């Protein structure tokens, strides 16, 4: 039985453009206080816009508020319920972080303020770097990367720069077949040839395969990109040996830190032999996902790699009274360069530091432990109903099942995911990692209470029963949403990617 949701009226709403009417306004600017001059007299008229901005809507403020409020109610959100999205660490986004990020001294500060007028910002950056270095056990941090993928890209460039500085122009990056798609994509952007490593029957790095790859390509292997815990939620037990063999082959170890929520406060990549890793602050450090960003993907590196980090770096000096003075250093001759303008997604960085300060060392560990506990609890209660992908593994912050049992009745992972919606949950991550057929990847995070988790377990069990008894019910799901499964294939065939005044509104009146 569905316990978690009930159907209720929900407002329709067209596109904002469909509300547009001549003469409506939603803004108010102060009147021009300098002498008004026609623009044509100030600027070469051929350079001026002549389409009257016809495509932009004309709407009033109450309508804009209503428009976005209404459409917001079509979304699921963390504040509405659990997001069992494996690999995504959808944890609670503290309101305190939001408030702090909006403090005018942060939000209204210009990135080109002279250092002496931005001491607060610079100290904040410095402090966050120190904190992340301690958490990861690494020597230095760059906060510049805007998200995990850019962190990967930057990290690989840093490795490449070190190797090149040694005159060692290696060309290959090893990527396990279980890796996230951004790993090979980033390696490729960094000019590397990607060599896929097959996982062993435990879903871990196959030590034989690794050895073989190194035997074959050793001198050309720049790096191994490893996710730890792996995308199966399993700790790489051989991590030290892996690092050792890569190092022996003259390569570096890049760790995808997307799963750091399993490790913070318990163990540190720096202690394992990892050379570079990125963190997803929008996962582990609770900054809101915002329907797709912004995130932040700082990288942490060992001492040897520090000179190659993106510039500028933040330095702390002391004046003659011993007072700390923070300073941006642009003179970084070995740096890989900039990967974006200015210093990173600053407003996200502020939130992350706020989170760290709020939890402190004890709270950070408590979060990790609880995240792992919750995942194990789910694994324990679902293991008889869904096949665990790698049943001998010790799940950490997430657990991966497959749809083998359900497939017998023609019900696949996608169907289970969609049926979860009817049960009031966001679907789990599906079909990732690619090495698991019909992967069902569940990460509860520490933000869920046992009751919500129990309801989730019941829902999953109930769906398993339905798969057997009423498979069509599952295959047609969701049934209780304002819109059903959309034909994505048709959408991709003839993409309509923008509104045109001739087209009809969506999600709107008459839907």
């Amino acid at each position, binding site marked *: 039985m569905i316990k978690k949701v009930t159907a209720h009226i929900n407002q329709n709403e067209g596109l904002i453009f469909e509300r547009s009417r001549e003469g409506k306004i939603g*803004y108010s600017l102060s009147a021009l206080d300098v002498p008004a001059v026609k623009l044509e007299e100030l600027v070469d008229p051929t350079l001026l816009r002549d389409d009257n*901005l016809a495509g932009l809507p004309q709407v009033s403020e109450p309508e804009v508020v209503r428009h976005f409020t209404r459409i917001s109610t079509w979304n699921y959100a963390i504040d509405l319920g659990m997001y069992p999205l494996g690999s995504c660490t959808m944890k609670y986004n503290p309101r305190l972080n939001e408030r702090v990020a909006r403090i005018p001294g942060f939000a209204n500060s210009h990135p080109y303020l002279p250092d002496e007028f931005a001491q607060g910002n610079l100290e904040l950056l410095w402090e966050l770097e120190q904190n992340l270095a301690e958490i990861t056990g690494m020597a230095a941090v760059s906060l510049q990367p805007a998200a995990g993928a850019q962190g990967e890209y930057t990290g690989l460039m840093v490795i490449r720069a070190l190797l090149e500085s040694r005159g060692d122009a290696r060309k290959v990056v090893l990527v396990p077949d279980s890796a996230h798609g951004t790993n090979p994509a980033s390696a490729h952007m960094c000019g590397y040839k990607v060599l896929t490593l097959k996982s062993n029957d435990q879903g871990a790095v196959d030590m034989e395969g690794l050895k073989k790859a190194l035997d074959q390509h050793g001198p050309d292997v720049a790096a191994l990109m490893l996710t730890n815990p792996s995308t199966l939620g399993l700790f790489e037990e051989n991590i030290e040996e892996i690092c050792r063999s890569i190092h022996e082959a003259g390569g570096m170890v890049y760790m995808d830190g997307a799963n750091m929520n399993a490790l913070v406060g318990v163990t540190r990549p720096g202690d394992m032999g990892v050379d570079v890793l990125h963190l997803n602050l929008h996962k582990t450090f609770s900054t*809101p996902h915002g329907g797709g960003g*912004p995130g932040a993907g700082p990288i942490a590196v060992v001492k040897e790699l520090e000179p190659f980090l993106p510039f500028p770096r933040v330095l702390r000096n002391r004046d003659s009274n011993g007072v700390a003075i923070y300073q941006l250093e642009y003179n970084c001759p070995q740096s890989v360069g900039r990967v*974006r303008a200015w210093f990173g997604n600053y*407003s996200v960085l502020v939130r992350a530091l706020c989170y760290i300060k709020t939890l402190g060392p004890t709270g950070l560990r408590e979060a990790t432990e609880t995240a792992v506990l919750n995942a194990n609890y789910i694994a324990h209660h679902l293991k008889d109903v869904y096949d665990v992908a790698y049943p001998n593994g010790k799940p950490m912050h997430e657990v991966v099942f497959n749809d083998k049992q359900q497939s017998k009745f023609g019900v696949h992972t996608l169907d289970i995911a969609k049926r979860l919606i009817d049960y009031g949950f966001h679907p789990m991550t599906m079909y990732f990692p690619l090495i698991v057929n019909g992967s069902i990847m569940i990460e509860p995070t520490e933000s869920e209470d046992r009751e919500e988790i129990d309801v989730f377990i019941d829902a999953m069990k109930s769906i398993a029963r339905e798969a057997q008894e009423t498979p069509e019910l599952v295959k047609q799901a969701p049934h209780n949403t304002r819109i059903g499964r959309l034909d994505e294939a048709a959408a991709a065939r003839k993409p309509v990617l923008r509104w045109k005044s001739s087209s009809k509104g969506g999600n709107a009146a008459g839907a």
Partner: protein
Amino acid sequence: KNVWFGVFGYWFFLWSLNPQSAIRNPKITMRYIPNSAQEREAMLRDMGRESIADLFTGIPAHLQLNQPLNLSPAYSEQQTLQYFNALAERNATPTQMSSFLGAGAYNHFIPTAIDSLISRSEFLTSYTPYQPEISQGTLQAIFEYQTMICDLTGMDVSNASLYDGSTAAAEAVLMASRVNGRGKIAIAGNLHPEYSEVVDTYIHHAGIERHLIEFDQTTGTISPETLANLGNDISAVVVQSPNFFGGIEQLQKLADATHKAGALLVVVVAEAMSLTALKAPGQCGADIVCGEAQSFGIPMSFGGAYCGFFAVREKYQRQIPGRLVGEAYDGQGRKGYVLTLATREQHIRREKATSNICTNQGLYALMATVYLSLMGREGLKESGGQNLQKAHYAATQIATIDGYHLRFGSSFFNEFTVSCPKPAQEVLGKLASRKIVGGLALERFFPGMKNDLLICVTETTSKQEIDALVEALKAI
């Protein structure tokens, strides 16, 4: 508010931090963690486990920390606010010092309703909309965003956002090379220097070579003639308009010259507000228009998070980096929106993807969408007009001061370059003591421009502030 006052408040705060705050009843849980210690015990028992440590046996024991991380103890909520407020007090904001800084980050007015809307849990705490049945809010908003970006740039297809303006420029370069397979890129010398640096980083390992297009020393713009002899190995010409010095480029002519060489014209727009007053690059023949949407309702926040936009001609839609939202229908014929053309992306294409970008700037694209909706056609025109008029008023006034003149002769929008009678850095220092941040000294990026100052004036800059700047320049 005095910036230096903040320092003392801050030290006072540090002194007041009580280390005891970390001492807490072990039975009491951190407030963000719903399952209490007792509940966790019960869950362990339920699973037949002894202790939490049991769950971590996958991690070799010697790798496990046996002491807490060396971080400051947990701050209480009040302490956290004090700590960050004290830090923030040590930054100068435009309400404390009037600011003429632009150069890629602009102090435009931000209507209050934006934050209230984007703070709704349903937007703020939702995931990337991979599940359209429960993500139509985000999807429809992105579809609206894409439409507005297309209209503003005059292009056919916009993606759902990239990290920022600089990476958008870099992605444009990579895309151009994918499209025509050419290995050289021509980059305007008046492109935002930080964008230029980012492009350099991105092309370095892509095997793309960079060719610099010098700007004209009298106009500060790219003269179409410099493009006359473009080699046919040039994949794309990248220009910025308004350029870094504030000048408006002759895009149509640059497009013609570029196309003659079979290259693509990439137009970078670092000041998106200029799109509200200046001819759309798409109307001038651009093939890719990309840049920074920060001006549309996004706080300056020390340089991020912002919102990179990216728009192309329809024929390139399958080459675009990043996410796209398109229309789709359900079984009952109801219209909705989905993430589409995902086969370009790394989830599916892995190393062959059009980019590695995954998480983008969703919430900030939403901010821009709300901003553009509120301002609307009239507001954007008015805002664009005010920027332009106020900047010209300021430029005219400054040019009347002895020893000061406009460095370049080109048309400009809301930024312009002033040559000072002494090093710009020195001028800025003197202005600072009068609580004015006078702009950006260009020497830092262009060593030859020691005396040149880049000044930005927006609709939020009052005539009084401009007049005060002029008076101050006269006096120093």
